[in-house]
């Protein structure tokens, strides 16, 4: 049977599909005799551009596995998950989950959590900065019944590995030796700088509960049950000192008022 592919006209569908074929052929509709390397220009640009976007977002992951491994892994990610938006700074959020399921990376068990830390750093870099709650807004009865709205920049990575120590080890030569203990890391932004801080287990449980939308009292409760030695005052002060509390919201009605206030 003769293939009649060459007789088909150009379509964006066939051109786009050919960009991701493992063994590319020249897609239909190009002028006769178009050499394959001309089409390869686009195929390479598309793949290399997306891999570059991931390299920019995951520099430490790349260092941990080496450029060659990273490129192969990133290509696999690109093949499975093309961006759905032209805003590539959002691309790669799913990389930590992808790495968890990527068998060749199984030998580096902390890789996915380092990727999660790098995702959190990227989110903090691009996050909106909201006005900080005035002290008077927080001096209210039943504050523990309120949910705290936190700065969008705040993220938390909880890992059974010393994920921050590993990350720091790739930032500067004089980083302390890695103590192989679990680490939870809060990532946020102070002015124009993204910062990350290791949190003790109860503080991490506290921040995780707040980020999950629990009330302040509920978060205190979660933290106390997570581990011994939780200092509720210190944990709350930690949030305030970093300007991370945007508002305290007691119910749906006040949520509406808050939206009105920030919308002005």
């Amino acid at each position, binding site marked *: 049977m003769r293939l009649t592919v060459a007789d088909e006209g150009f379509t*964006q569908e066939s051109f786009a599909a050919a960009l991701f074929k493992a063994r590319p052929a020249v897609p239909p509709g190009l*002028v006769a005799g178009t050499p394959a390397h001309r089409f390869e*220009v686009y195929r390479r640009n*598309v793949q290399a551009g997306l891999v570059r976007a991931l390299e920019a977002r995951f520099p430490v992951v790349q260092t941990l596995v080496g450029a060659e491994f990273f490129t192969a892994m990133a290509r696999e990610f690109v093949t499975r998950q093309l961006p759905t938006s032209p805003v*590539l700074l959002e691309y790669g959020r799913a990389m930590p989950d992808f790495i968890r399921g990527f068998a060749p990376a199984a030998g580096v068990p902390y890789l996915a959590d380092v990727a999660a830390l790098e995702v959190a750093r990227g989110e903090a870099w*691009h996050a909106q*900065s909201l006005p900080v709650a005035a002290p008077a807004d927080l001096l209210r009865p039943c504050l523990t019944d309120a949910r705290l709205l936190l700065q969008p920049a705040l993220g938390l990575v909880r890992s059974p590995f010393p994920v921050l120590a590993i990350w720091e080890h790739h930032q500067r030569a004089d980083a302390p030796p890695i103590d192989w203990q679990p680490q939870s890391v809060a990532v946020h932004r102070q002015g124009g700088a993204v910062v990350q801080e290791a949190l003790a287990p109860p503080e991490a449980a506290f921040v995780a509960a707040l980020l999950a939308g629990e009330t302040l009292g509920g978060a205190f409760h979660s933290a106390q049950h997570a581990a011994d030695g939780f200092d509720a005052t210190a944990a709350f002060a930690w949030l305030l000192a970093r300007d991370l509390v945007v508002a305290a919201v007691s119910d749906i009605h006040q949520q509406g008022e808050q939206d009105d206030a920030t919308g002005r």
Partner: protein
Amino acid sequence: MATTSSPIGVGFKPSHFATLIAARQPIDFLEIHAENHMGPGGVPHMQLGELASSYALSVHGVGLSLGGEDAPDRAHLARLRTLCARHSPFLVSEHLAWSSHGGMFLNDLLPLPYTPATLARVVNHVDEVQASLGRRILVENPARCLAFAEPTIPEPAFLAELCRRTGCGVLLDVTNVLVSATNLREPASRLLDDMLAALPPGTVGEIHLSGPESVIEPDGATMLLDTHGAPTPEAAWLLYRRALAGIGPVPTLVEWDNDVPDWEVLLAEAARARQLSATVRCG
């Protein structure tokens, strides 16, 4: 007719931010890639706010997929509208290409056959974008390396008709003229002259200059890749002079996106454009 110098700009790279803010640099505008500033906020927004207080801005998009089969992504168009409302750029430009298909962003400026059907489609998309933004946009001629089997309209005629039907302008990338002409085996000066002759007066709203990469093809011929990673070659400067002689001063941008050089190197390229645009006489 005496000429005045064109406004000269460079593409903004974050590595140059500190230099741009420490002291007012001798450039007239900065061009930003729209999609790099479409996050919710954070440091990129803060930086852009600071830059906008010292420099005029031009917004250059790569994500609208004007040549795509799908209509422009409404969410993306809304982001572009927000960006333009926030920073009031004096120019907004996009490409005569497609970069999305079937809801996926393909991250490249993919080639479009120039036919009556694709012209009608691009006209609709440009109309929609201009209506949404409430302003004229410039559409850039792409760097081409493929030719299509079906009969096509010459690029100058296609762009001219797009301008006539939509009121849009053209971002004339003279390096892309050089790249396309070299790759499609025609004289670059002829493609440029055809472009200048075809485009209605006043439609070229900006000129781009950049450095392509040269590769040798299996048949020994030279092919150019539009890599924005090198100084503007002499052949592109010649086309720039020719364009200035034809249409007079136009805002001119030096693009350098890969292997970004030190600020002084970029500034020297901008200075050369300024010097040329001040000396070439129109007509």
